[in-house]
Every structure is written in structure tokens, then in C-alpha cells.
């Protein structure tokens, strides 16, 4: 296995930071140049979701839809039927929060390559509060047949994911966030839809993480080392199709697993891994994420700490978990 190429600053006190939506904005603008069939539709949040870069460069291929998320995606279905590759963007709270049925019927069941872009997911949406902190999107999108679900870990990966989606012949969901979060990957780090990556090797516990909490999981490794725990970090930017092979391989080595996500653990990455364990390898599981409650107003990074999603919160929970749950060995 090739070694993952890291941003050298990721473990420093001042890692490079950027919002994942910025990576989307760059990647989408680049698609304008390479993919004449790509078009952008937005529901009155063009700069906020960073679609303005594309809209300014390719105004003839940008369509302002107004605050109408149901129309947003059903239009997308019509554009896709006419041979276009539409990226339909708004906040995740409304897209797919408000238009789930339309996505199912007119994009997924209809097998058209509509790309759903949900910005401002998770608690880092911050002061806007629970109404705008979309935490249920992973669960609601991954249960949909014919739907790909990708949660990039940083802005560099978000740019790659955006480009990859344009060439992936299926409806896709791209989960983005508002706040600047640490960049752990580089231009040369691998990204492929459907692949998970071992970022850091260990033997006592597997931490599988998705989205913008991956850099925090990575930074928790050092804290865990000090407590004598060797953690293996697997980054799973694609929730669906899920890279079971990579996660199971790690799990068979460590014998227990922790999931980390800025989303409801029920049906989220926590749900994905719980299902996998139930099906194939019943090791102990700890799910870090939202536990059947909504978020609340606060500063983004303050909320990450408050809910225990930062490196300290993650490390603390993993230590307790490792103490209380022995490693699973098949045959026992």
C-alpha cells in the first residue's frame, strides 16, 4: 500500500485551513473548462456555496433558480435527460433536506446523473443553529438506491471529489461544510469514489472517519499514543459505495472500531459500520457523532469541542472505549 501523502502542517499547532465548499468552488469552475456539458443550478446561495466562481466564468451555463429547492432538483432531472450534467446546489438542510422525494423519483430512480451539492452540513454551520445544521443527510441519502454519497475530508479532497462526480455516471450527493477546517491531504493524495484510505497505521483500535472530522481523528493519534494506544486511522470520504474491504482489513488487525462523523450516528457512518460488523465481523464498536439530538447555536469550532468532535474529545472517548471493550478475535 502506497503511503498517504500528507499536508506537512496537519499536526502543527497552526494547520492550514480552508472550508470544503471552497474546494468545491475551485473544482466546479475547473469542470467548466473541461466538461462543456456541466451546468450549475443554485437556489439563491450562489456565493455561499461557492458556485459563483463557475457562474462568473461560465454565465451561460449557470441557472439561478431562486429559493425553490424542489424545483432545483426536478429541473436538474430535466437538464440531465437533455444530456447535461447538472450540479444542483444549496444548503444541505434544504437540499436534500427539503427535496428528498424529488431526488429519489426524478434523479435516483430515474437513473440520471444529477449531482446534489449540500453545503453547510453539520454543526460547523454554527450560529445559525439547529435548523441549518444538517445532520441527517448521510442517513437519508445513503438509503437511496442509485445514489453515491461523498463527504470530503478537506478542501483539497472536495475539489477532487467534485471533478470525480462529473465523470461518475450516477446521481451523487456531495456533502460540504461552511467553516474553515484543517487540510490534511495534498494534490498528490489519492482520491477515488468508493475508496477509503489508511492515513495512519496502528494495532489497538481502528478509527474510521468521514468528512471534516478526519483531521481531528488524525490529530487524536498522538494523544492516544501518550495513553499507550496505537490507533489506525481510516478516512472514508465515500459513504456509498462503502469501501468495506479496506475497513475490514484494518478491523481484522485491530479487533475494535470507532466511527467519527459530524452527523447523526444513526444511519450515518456509524450505521454503515454497525451494519458491516453485524454482517461480517462482530467487533466492538463506538460511534462518535450526534446521538439522536439536534445541534444548537454557537461558534463553529466551539461546537466541535462542545460535542466532543475535536482531537481531545475523540481521544478521551477512544481511551474509555479501549479500556472497557476488549479486541475481538474470531473463533473466541
Amino acid at each position, binding site marked *: 500500500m502506497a503511503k498517504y501523502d500528507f499536508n506537512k502542517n496537519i499536526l502543527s499547532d497552526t494547520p492550514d485551513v480552508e472550508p470544503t465548499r471552497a474546494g468545491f468552488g475551485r473544482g466546479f469552475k475547473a469542470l467548466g473548462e473541461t466538461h462543456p456539458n456541466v451546468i450549475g443550478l443554485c437556489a439563491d446561495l450562489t456565493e455561499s456555496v461557492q458556485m459563483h466562481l463557475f457562474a462568473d466564468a461560465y454565465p451561460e451555463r449557470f441557472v439561478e433558480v431562486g429559493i425553490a429547492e*424542489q424545483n432545483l432538483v426536478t429541473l436538474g432531472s430535466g437538464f440531465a435527460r437533455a444530456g447535461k450534467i447538472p450540479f444542483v446546489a444549496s444548503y444541505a438542510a434544504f437540499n436534500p433536506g427539503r427535496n428528498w422525494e424529488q431526488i429519489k423519483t426524478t434523479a435516483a430512480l430515474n437513473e440520471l446523473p444529477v449531482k446534489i451539492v449540500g453545503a453547510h452540513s453539520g454543526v460547523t454551520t454554527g450560529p445559525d443553529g439547529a435548523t441549518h445544521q444538517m445532520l441527517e443527510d448521510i442517513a437519508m441519502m445513503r438509503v437511496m438506491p442509485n445514489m453515491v454519497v461523498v463527504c470530503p475530508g478537506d478542501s483539497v479532497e472536495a475539489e477532487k471529489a467534485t471533478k470525480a462526480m462529473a465523470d461518475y455516471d450516477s446521481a451523487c450527493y456531495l456533502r460540504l461544510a461552511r467553516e474553515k477546517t484543517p487540510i490534511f491531504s495534498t494534490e498528490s493524495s489519492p482520491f477515488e469514489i468508493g475508496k477509503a484510505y489508511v492515513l495512519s497505521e496502528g494495532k489497538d483500535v481502528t478509527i474510521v472517519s468521514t468528512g471534516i472530522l478526519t483531521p481531528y481523528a488524525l490529530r487524536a493519534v498522538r494523544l492516544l499514543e501518550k495513553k499507550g494506544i496505537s490507533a489506525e486511522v481510516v478516512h472514508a470520504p465515500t459513504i456509498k459505495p462503502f469501501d468495506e474491504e479496506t475497513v475490514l482489513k484494518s478491523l481484522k488487525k485491530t479487533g475494535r472500531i470507532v466511527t467519527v462523523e459530524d452527523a447523526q450516528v444513526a444511519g450515518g457512518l456509524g450505521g454503515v459500520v454497525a451494519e458491516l460488523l453485524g454482517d461480517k465481523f462482530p467487533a466492538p464498536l463506538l460511534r462518535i457523532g450526534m446521538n439522536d439530538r439536534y445541534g444548537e447555536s454557537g461558534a463553529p469550532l466551539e461546537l466541535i469541542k462542545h460535542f466532543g468532535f475535536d482531537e481531545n474529545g475523540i481521544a478521551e472517548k477512544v481511551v474509555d472505549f479501549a479500556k472497557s471493550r476488549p479486541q475481538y478475535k474470531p473463533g473466541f
Partner: protein
Amino acid sequence: MGGRLTRQQLEVRANDVRIDIIRMLERAGSGHSAGPLGLADLMTTLYFDIMNIDPKNPEMKDRDIFMMSNGHCVPVQYAVMAERGFFPKEELMTLRQLGSRLQGHPERTKLPGLENTSGPLGCGISQGAGYAYSLQYLDNDRKRWVYVVTGDGELNEGNIWEAMMFAGKYKLSQLIVFVDRNNIQIDGPTEVVMPLEDLAAKWRSFGWHVQEIDGHNIESIQDAVGMAKAIENRPSVIITHTIPGKHVDFMEYDYKWHGVAPNHDQAREALNELRTMKGKIKGEHE
């Protein structure tokens, strides 16, 4: 097809379509009767006279596009498509059965010739608008038309009004929407359940060109489409007044037939009426 069908020929075709609908629904044992019967004249005129389509080449590049928004009326679309030669008529009898390409609500990927997947109401105008926008602004293809049929009860859906605003703003002149104005929905008359009038004024205020026609008069349908095509800089809506259950006496105007299929005896009665065109011609088995 050699040349255009006369209006009388289209009427006979529409009658055949109604016969197909009754037979399909009786066999299926479930499904919607009233709406499909009411739409038979419009759908026959679209598929046999108005639209540029090729049943042998459903993905023909310069074809016109038809999208049914009220997917529960799809039996009439299946019947018209079979009559037009998209697939063998025998297949109509598989409607709603396991393994059939003729799903209870239309699924594009199941049956060549379908342009959309629908059923959950309110989505068809948007899907048509996306297609029409592509033709008008992205492909500069001004010779193709996008036809959408929507129900009237369906206009309760918010998605519809979002689409109306959008098509009005972008002046989608290649988009032609028919509202199947049959005045019924599941819970009763549309004006009781959720009043739509003044419906023409509502569309007009959203920037649409509005016509109202008798949906059982083939000449009116042809004329209205001709007018809609001639209107530039505006999308067109044709409020198409139809009689639910049209040409089957015991179904006409009765909202109880909205979501029900005829049983064997009811189907026999209906077929007898249709086969004689209400006594105009001699029934084949009489």
C-alpha cells in the same frame, strides 16, 4: 404512417385507446380509470398527429419530448404508445404485474419511449422546464418542443408554482403544458378540496400564454398547439377541459372512479359502449 390522420381517424384511434385502457385496468385489477379515459383524445392527438417521434427510434435526436407529470394516468400513455407501435399491444395486458415494463407509475428506465419517471405529483413541469431550457439556451435547438401533461388536483403541489415562476422568468417558449382540467381529485371536486380558480389568471400572472380548450375536440387541441408554438417569449399552458371517464357513461363525472379499476362486468359494459362508439357503429360481437 403515411400522411396525417384525419380527425375522424384520430377519433377512432382515441376510441381504440379507451378500449385498451379498460382492458388493461380490468386485467390489472387496480389503477386509475377516470383520468386516462379523459386524456385519450389529447394523448392520441399528441402521439399520432402533433409530436415528431419515431416509435422505432425512441431516442431519435430531433424528437419532441413528452412528459406526464400525473403519472397515475400512465395507462393512457401506454395505450397510445402501443397503438403507435412503440411496443406490442399484447404487452398492455401486463400492466402493474411483476416483471412488466409497464409499471403502475411510469419509469423511464423500464420502457423505451418514456422520457421521465413520475407519480409523486408536482414534478413534471420542472422536468420539462429543465429540458426546454437546455434546448433554448444551451443547445440553441429551436425546432423541438417539450410537452407536459399535468393534472389539476396536482396543482396543489408547491413544486408546480416554483416551476411556473421559473418557466415564466426564463420565457421557455418551447415548453407547452396541458392542465388536465377535469375538476376532480381523490377527496372530491377540486374547487372543494383546494380551489384553483381563477386558474387562467393565475398562470397568466406568472408570465404564461394561456388558452382554454375542450379536451375532447381534436380540432381545438390541434389549433391550440399551433397557437402555442407560434407564441414566442413565453411558455404556454393549455387548460384542457376534460370529462373524467369520458365515453363510459357510468364513469363520467363520478370522482369515485378516480382511483379504481373496473371489475369484469363493469369492463364488459364499458367495452360494449366503446366498441359501438355509443351506438354510432355496430359492435363486433353484437
